[in-house]
């Protein structure tokens, strides 16, 4: 909870500062764009947070986005597939990728870093091969489908008429709420947290740790697949070699900023989504405040580092206080315990 307040505070701070320096930040157009991009990155960040909670990592997300995006355009425009069969094929591929990662990591006991690094290379190569490395687009067709990514809906009473909510954000809300309920309210969510902290103890408690880990990789790849579809529909002009490049790093950064520990066993969906928002707002601020864009990576890196350092310091303080409290309790506790 404290973590969410911390990252939420950071988001408010960055937004306020940017708005003061350039009031254009709060224009409906700019906000809608920022929210749409937050949503797109939020979806893949929520996915990767499952893997991070198990103590793993997925470096292949960006390439899955690239592969899926290229496949969508290629199947629809080059191969003439219908929309449902194209989407079906894409979800199947994402699912398969997740299952493969999971099996290699749990059954062959390969390191997640290595498996998904190979995935990163493999799927990028596959995307470029099947499309002949040609850029693809939907042009003016598939208007309805593209609304999934670029559409907006008016929400009367809640927002002024000039502002409408981007549809990807609605998708993110649905996925995010589902993910949060899964993590916090189901026994499987508890299993993921437990095995992320101590896989051995989880197994000794009768948890099928392999299955749970495979499930986490499947959720991650599926989210990347959904993200890939939306990214492709959003940009319309798809470069198989470039779509989604480095997105895994943004997703991991958002998850870490949002309170996931790469050691596993920690993280909240709300935090991760706010983390994704912080990254997008920073990016947006760099643009509209006319900060040289070459500084983009440096600024984002510095903010993440500062966030993680603060978090660690706060955690240490909390640990000390808690240990002191326990000591006091045992000292006062009468009985057979000599202390």
């Amino acid at each position, binding site marked *: 909870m404290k973590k969410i307040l911390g990252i939420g505070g950071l988001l408010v701070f960055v937004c306020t500062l940017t708005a003061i320096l350039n009031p254009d930040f709060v224009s409906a157009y700019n906000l809608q764009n920022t929210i749409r991009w937050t949503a797109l990155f939020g979806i893949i960040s929520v996915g990767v947070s499952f893997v991070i909670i198990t103590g793993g990592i997925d470096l292949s997300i960006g390439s899955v986005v690239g592969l899926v995006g290229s496949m969508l355009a290629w199947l629809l425009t080059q191969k003439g597939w219908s929309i449902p069969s194209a989407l079906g094929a894409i979800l199947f591929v994402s699912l398969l990728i997740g299952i493969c990662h999971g099996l290699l990591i749990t059954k062959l006991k390969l390191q997640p870093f290595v498996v998904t690094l190979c995935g990163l290379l493999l799927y990028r190569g596959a995307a470029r091969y099947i499309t002949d490395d040609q850029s693809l687009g939907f042009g003016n067709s598939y208007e309805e489908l593209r609304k999934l990514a670029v559409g907006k809906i008016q929400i009367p009473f809640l927002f002024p008429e000039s502002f409408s909510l981007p549809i990807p954000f609605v998708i993110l809300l649905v996925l995010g709420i589902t993910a949060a309920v899964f993590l916090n*309210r*189901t*026994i*499987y969510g*508890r*299993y993921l*947290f*437990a095995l992320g*902290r*101590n896989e*051995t*103890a*989880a*197994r*000794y*408690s*009768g*948890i*099928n740790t392999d299955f749970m880990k495979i499930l986490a990789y499947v959720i991650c790849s599926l989210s990347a697949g959904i993200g890939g579809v939306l990214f492709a529909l959003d940009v319309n002009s798809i470069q198989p070699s470039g779509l989604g490049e480095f997105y895994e790093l943004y997703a991991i950064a958002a998850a870490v900023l949002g309170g996931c520990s790469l050691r596993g*066993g920690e993280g909240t969906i709300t935090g991760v989504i706010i983390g994704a928002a912080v990254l997008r707002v920073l990016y947006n601020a760099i643009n509209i405040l006319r900060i040289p864009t070459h500084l983009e990576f440096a600024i984002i890196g510095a903010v993440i580092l500062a966030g993680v350092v603060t978090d660690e310091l706060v955690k240490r303080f909390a640990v000390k206080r*808690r*240990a002191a*409290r*326990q*000591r006091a*309790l*045992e000292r006062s*506790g009468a*009985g*057979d*315990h*000599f*202390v």
Partner: protein
Amino acid sequence: MADASDGSLLEVRELTKRFPGVLALRGVSLRILPGEVLAVIGENGAGKSTLMKILAGVQKADSGEILLNGKAAEIASVRDAIGLGIVLIHQELNLSDNLDIGANIFLGREPSRFGWMDKRRIHEASRPVLDRIGLRHSPGTLVSQLSIGQQQMVEIAKALSSDARILIMDEPTSSLSHHEAAQLFAVVRQLRSNGVSIVYISHRLGEVKELADRVVVLRDGANAGELGREEISHDQMVKLMVGRDVSQFYQHVPRPKGEVALEVRDLRTSANPSHSINLHVCGGEIVGLAGLVGAGRTELLRSVFAIDPFLEGEIRVAGKRIDVSHPRDAIHAGIGLVPEDRKEQGLVLEMAVRENLSLPSLRRDQKNGFLNRAEENRVTTQMIRDLNIKTPGPEQVVQYLSGGNQQKVVLGKWLAMNPKVLLLDEPTRGIDVGAKREIYRLMEQLAETGVAVLFVSSEMEEILGMSDRALVMHEGRITGELSRGELSEEAVMHLATGRIHKNQEACA
């Protein structure tokens, strides 16, 4: 060289050390004379290891003094200790097994020429120390090719090469064969005659009797007594260690025996494939599984609980054969395991007491995959009360509890499952005396309700005090069974060292 007043090489005065949740040392004092073998004994958790770690600079005392040759010595780091001639040889050896013997002996202080390591000089300088302890291997031999006993010799050589005057050995024979142990004793005696003082920590009273010039006994973090060479006897040592009548600590009440609850037939574990194991435990019975470290007891429990696959054999619970390929199956059949390593295997340390207690029962209590919060809270409250777990509340993170309370949480996980069979692997290792007694009471209460209890213990007192019946293992097989009436330290040791006894007694 020693202080004229009492001739001590090293004197420790009133050392105190506190860890979160436990006062490990409460004003311990100790003298070490030049050229003696001083045994420090005590039960687990008595403070032996903490005391030795402080002497060797691994940990710092909260208060107290250390005098070397009568002068106050500051030991803030391992380096300081080595500089003063004090070296600790850990129970778990600290060698880099990818390096050779010579490199290990000189690790961290390699002779070098212009920054280049001088391998030849290392090997030359290693030879005399190796000769001194009678290890006939070339200094160029990789440590990974040595047996555990030989590796221990390398540790000793490493200590000697840094001119150690006080050598602290923590349970040095715990993983040695008899032959290797005998060799170690010879080296210890020879070092003593060369004027090296040896502090020898051991649970094995036989060894202590054989080697020690003097015995210091610790109990609950304080001095419990001292025995001179002539006073050292098994009974004297046990009396000081336990500090009370053993019979009072273990109040054995006979219980009615039920039907066979757990049966293991012709089980061959992958750890000991050449022997097959047969055993049974009746409902309401507490069976102790004794044996030396490495006898295959833990492996047996792990196979029954399906953590390690077994090669062949069958496991029956309440007469029904069960198929176990994952701990989940064993749990489903009504088996619980309190594992050997509480922190690694028993608990998710960073999670709350509630989350740990409910981990195995979540599946049973689920509502279509959703957590059953009400049931979870009920079970947690009940377990904290029934087991008298000392915690500020159900949300306290387990890692901040004392060892005894942590162990009660592990037990609580299984009690919540109402098991038919409870396996416990060293259930009281590293917990204080008060909590120990509570764990014993819990085991007895469980047996009274008809649970079959099978526990592994390396503490003789525990096996003798708790078992309705004891099974003894040696090198992967059960060498015999001792009924309550036949239980004695000698009888257990005979079987534990490989003499074969008789068949097992039947259930009701």
